[in-house]
């Protein structure tokens, strides 16, 4: 057992080291705004992102005796995770400062969560996947509970924790069955054994079922979605924003690693199960979102619907489909982040702007913010020329080409239902009377970053080619 190719782990090692440094710096600084800790955390993410770029080769390389893999997919996803988390921490700090609940641990926990995500993305071993997942999840549980005096946040945290623990348990159980069947924890070896054997499938499929439950829970697919609305609504908006963005990329990577890399030979089985989950998710998410009056909760259901759409890419069961799903998840993370950031921006100390009514007449209060929100909502609804449209197009194209026409039609039908509640927000902003006349207060940096976030959906939507070809490259043999 030799330590080879350790340089592949450079981003993770740097992140871990700097995260510990952040913890130290924050403890010994007396800044009430936790400036040093925050800036060091941002620097950490930036350094990690640069290191990801530097170590990116596009080929599959293995390290730590095959427990760790660095390939085209991991490169792109890690970079996206770092950049998105960079934005997320920025928004978070604005929120925490505004609501006066800023704590240094928040940034440290955030960094550890990012580390967990990177490990998940690069995992080439069932245990590495689990390790990354737990590191991420435990950090997130703590982040949800960061506002200790809020009873809704505490409730959300305990729900998230208990349900998450059950799901992790199931995943672990699935992993142990797979190990029992194949005698290996390494994903490639698992696939190889399953490929060659004809006796094992029955038991392996049980392993698959439990693994799938774990993955579905993390992604928030129906019927393992129950935690999502409660946590999204109950958690401080900054945390919701964090949970709703980068971790979805990691969950997607986990799905690819486990289902495609490890359980690829069982494709016909998980394809059917995912199909059910995808349709249920799109149906439930879109239908229920309509009845919500709380926009955080509405976005939670919309997340569930988006996850359903994303799973469709996996259902397609080929490289194009996976690339489509990857494009979708990155797009989703950008949109979701923008949506929650808007809620943060409109809120004031002690009063979150999380009701739909808070958006009434926004066009009159601030035409620019209303326009940004319009971009976000149209993009989520999948209307061109915004990025969200290309994501839907990409996935639909692959699904239809893979021959699942009826499921694509269902997806379209539910997307139509979904369009209704996104458009309702736009209608509220542009056609209803504002509840308060004054322009929303926000700092210039927040406004600028949110503008960048929103406009990126338009600009990437006008030239989606680069991101698309990167996603395609991640899965081309």
């Amino acid at each position, binding site marked *: 057992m030799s330590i080879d190719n350790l340089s592949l782990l450079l981003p993770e090692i740097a992140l871990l080291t700097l995260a510990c440094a952040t913890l130290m710096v*924050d403890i010994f600084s007396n800044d009430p705004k936790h400036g040093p800790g925050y800036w060091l955390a941002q620097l950490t993410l930036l350094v990690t992102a640069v290191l990801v770029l530097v170590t990116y080769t596009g080929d599959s390389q293995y390290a730590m005796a095959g427990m760790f893999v660095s390939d085209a997919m991991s490169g792109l996803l890690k970079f996206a995770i770092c950049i998105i988390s960079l934005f997320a921490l920025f928004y978070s700090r604005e929120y925490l400062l505004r609501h006066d609940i800023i704590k240094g641990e928040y940034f440290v926990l955030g960094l550890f969560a990012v580390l967990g995500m990177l490990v998940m993305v690069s995992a080439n071993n069932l245990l590495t996947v689990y390790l990354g997942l737990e590191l991420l999840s435990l950090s997130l549980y703590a982040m949800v509970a960061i506002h200790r005096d809020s009873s809704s946040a505490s409730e959300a945290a305990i729900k998230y924790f208990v349900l998450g623990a059950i799901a992790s348990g199931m995943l672990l159980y699935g992993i142990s069955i797979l190990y029992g069947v194949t005698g290996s924890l390494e994903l490639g070896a698992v696939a190889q054994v399953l490929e060659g054997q004809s006796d094992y499938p029955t038991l392996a499929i049980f392993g698959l*079922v439990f693994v799938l439950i774990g993955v579905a829970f993390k992604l928030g697919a129906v019927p393992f979605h129950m935690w999502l609305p409660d946590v999204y609504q109950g958690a401080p908006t900054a945390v919701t924003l964090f949970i709703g963005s980068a971790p979805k990329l990691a969950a997607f990577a986990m799905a690819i690693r486990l289902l495609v890399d490890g359980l690829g030979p069982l494709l016909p089985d998980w394809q059917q199960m995912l199909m059910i989950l995808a349709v249920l998710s799109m149906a439930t998410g879109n239908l229920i979102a309509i009845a919500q009056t709380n926009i955080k909760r509405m976005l939670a259901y919309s997340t569930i619907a988006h996850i359903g759409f994303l799973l469709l890419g996996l259902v397609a069961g080929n490289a194009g489909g996976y690339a489509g799903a990857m494009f979708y998840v990155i797009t989703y993370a950008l949109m979701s982040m923008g949506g929650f950031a808007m809620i943060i921006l409109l809120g004031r100390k002690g009063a979150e702007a999380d009701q739909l009514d808070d958006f009434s007449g926004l066009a009159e209060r601030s035409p620019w913010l209303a326009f940004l929100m319009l971009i976000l909502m149209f993009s989520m609804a999948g209307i061109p020329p915004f990025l969200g449209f290309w994501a839907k197009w990409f996935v639909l194209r692959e699904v239809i080409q893979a021959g699942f026409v009826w499921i694509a039609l269902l997806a379209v039908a539910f997307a*139509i239902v979904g369009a209704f509640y996104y458009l309702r927000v736009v*209608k509220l902003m542009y056609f209803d009377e504002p509840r308060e006349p004054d322009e929303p207060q926000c700092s210039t940096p927040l406004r600028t970053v949110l503008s960048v976030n929103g406009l990126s959906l338009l600009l990437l939507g006008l030239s989606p080619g680069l991101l698309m070809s990167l996603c395609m490259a991640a899965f081309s043999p």
Partner: protein
Amino acid sequence: MLLAVLSGFILAACAPWLTRLLGDRAGWVLALLPAALFVYFLSWIPLTAGGAAEVVHYSWIPGLDINLSFLVDGLSLLFALLISGIGTFIIIYSGGYLHGHEYLPRFYGIMFAFMAAMLGVVLSNNIISLFVFWELTSITSYLLIGFNHEDKQARWCALQGLFVTVAGGLALLAGLIMLAGAGGSFELSELLNSGDVLRDYPLYTGMLILILFGTFTKSAQVPFHFWLPNAMAAPTPVSAYLHSATMVKAGIYLMARLNPGLGGTDQWLYTLGLFGAVTMFTGSFMALRSTDVKAMLAYSTIMALGTLTMLIGIGTEAAIIAALAFLLAHALYKAALFMLAGGLDHETGTKNILNMGGLRRLMPVSFITACVAALSLAGLPPLFGFIAKELMFEATLHAPAIATVTTVLAVISAIMIMAVAALFALRPYTGKLKETPKQPHEAPPSMLAGPVVLAALSLVFGVAGFLPVQGILHSAVAAVHGSPLEFKLYLWHGVNTPLLLSLLAVVTGLLVFAGWDRVLAVYRRLTFIDRFGPERGYERVMAALVWVAEWQTRVLQNGYMRNYLITILLTAVALAGGTFFIYTGNTVPFGTVDITFYEAVIAALIIAGAIVVSLMQSRLGAVATVGMVGFGVALIYVLFSAPDLAITQIMVETLTVILLVLVLYRLPRFLNLSSTAARIRDALVALLFGGMMTVLILAVLDVEVVAPISDQLVAWSYDEGHGRNIVNVILVDFRALDTLGEIFVVGLAAIGVYAMIRLRAEDKRS
């Protein structure tokens, strides 16, 4: 070409600024762009003569089949000319109509973006870029419709209109992707040449339904027609533009465009023919009922859209010629009429036709223009509308299979539209002058330029039918039909059935006009129809969706974690149990299990612990019993010679119990909150899940055991670790990193503890 399409977007970005700079003259100056585009498109006419098509290619997202390629032929050019030509007058007109309006700059911006998007729709050769432009028209038209947003009506209908068109758009997207899959290309120019392949596609019907759902919603066909009159809340220049040349015609354009590829089948004929005919009838029926001048025109637009759809559906040579002639005629007179209606609204301050009268002396130019345009609407000679209507009758009379239905509906519609035309031209201008909210006088030149020119064109084209034919209709017909057709347009065809039908329509129509007040009274008694209208259907569906959502929230997503747990566990049971059943049938591959006495005792202990804990009434007792289960598991580890695991388990268990006790000590008294029924349900779920796990474990036992890792460690320890004491080698070599990690973790934990202590101190201070 790229610049021609995108120039509108560019101007849209700077239009607000230009408007402020130019002040009152803005309308005239900004209109230069559409005028220039009009001239530019005119210059393309020779290139498309005889049905030739030109493809202009720009790559957008290379490698993914998405290009900004443009298809220029008679059909796209006809639309491009209408969009830019009428657009010119609309821009001039809005300068006068919205004079001094605070949002005028923004209005121009959106208007230009809308115009550019429309040009993109009709010129795109790539179906994906076509779709992108298609949806852009929805977004911009939404902003246009909602422009007048102080109006309550505007708010309600904005959401409705957009939702209907966006829903249609998404369906269209699916249809287009299927189309591309069937035809093997994303380029229209290639798809249209593979009509036979497309018609033989196994999912042809499904594809057609999706595409038609898109075009029907866009072009306000029954039963989606309800959003169009509601869009009337928009300022008039918008209505004129939307309803004459543009947005609603986008659907018509697409159907005409796809005719060579998808048309000619029974599905195409019946769907388009019948839906079109019903729409035509509904539109004219509702038009006659309205008293609001704009609503009247909006419903007559629906009638025209229905007619066009019907003609495209019939698809014979005569029908295609009629469709394109009718399209041109309609665009000319409808734009003129809408602008005139806007003039009436602007000058008198009311839209209700019952409140207007005797305006001919005050607004003579408007009156004459209205008469000319209305003659074309009514389909009377010598206007171009007459030629179009004759052609329509000709086409319906010879339609395959549905001739009777279409002809009867066409004649009835023609009667009603005759009456509507007479009402519009005569009612506001003749008779006694009536009191209106504003003192009326003639509209300003900017608001008259458009109607006068367009009405004049209706007349010129009617008298000299060869002009539009040679100019554009000939090549447009070739594009829709798929091959060039020879035809000429004359006012006088000799005495034939279409002429007789026209005569019948005119006479009856005038009778209806004379007795309109009585007709209105009859209509008033028919209001119950509204209760069954599609608008009600839309509201019902929306209400039902909300109800479903609320029901789900109440039953499933009710905030109780135990319900969530039940769902997760039951789904796991269903998934695993289902798989188990499918793969193994009823035979359970149980391995043979030898249970020793000690194992049985420990298992009994664990089971007893689990049962007791669920019956326990005190928290402390429950914690202690859970501990019993944990220690039982530790004993099992001991039995299977894994002392290190057993030790860990015992430590963790002890610690957990202590921590739990410490926490519970501070909690309030234990309350039993669940009812007996709930407890029985929970017990069942638990048994089910536990039972499934047991079965699974028994099944796992049957599997051949993989070689244990210890063999490998033994093999490695001497060769790679160079040590004979395996335990030592494991600890210092194999797990060296582990040990480093553990040290690290302990260090980190120490920092964490320090942070917590500090926090506590801070809390105390504050």
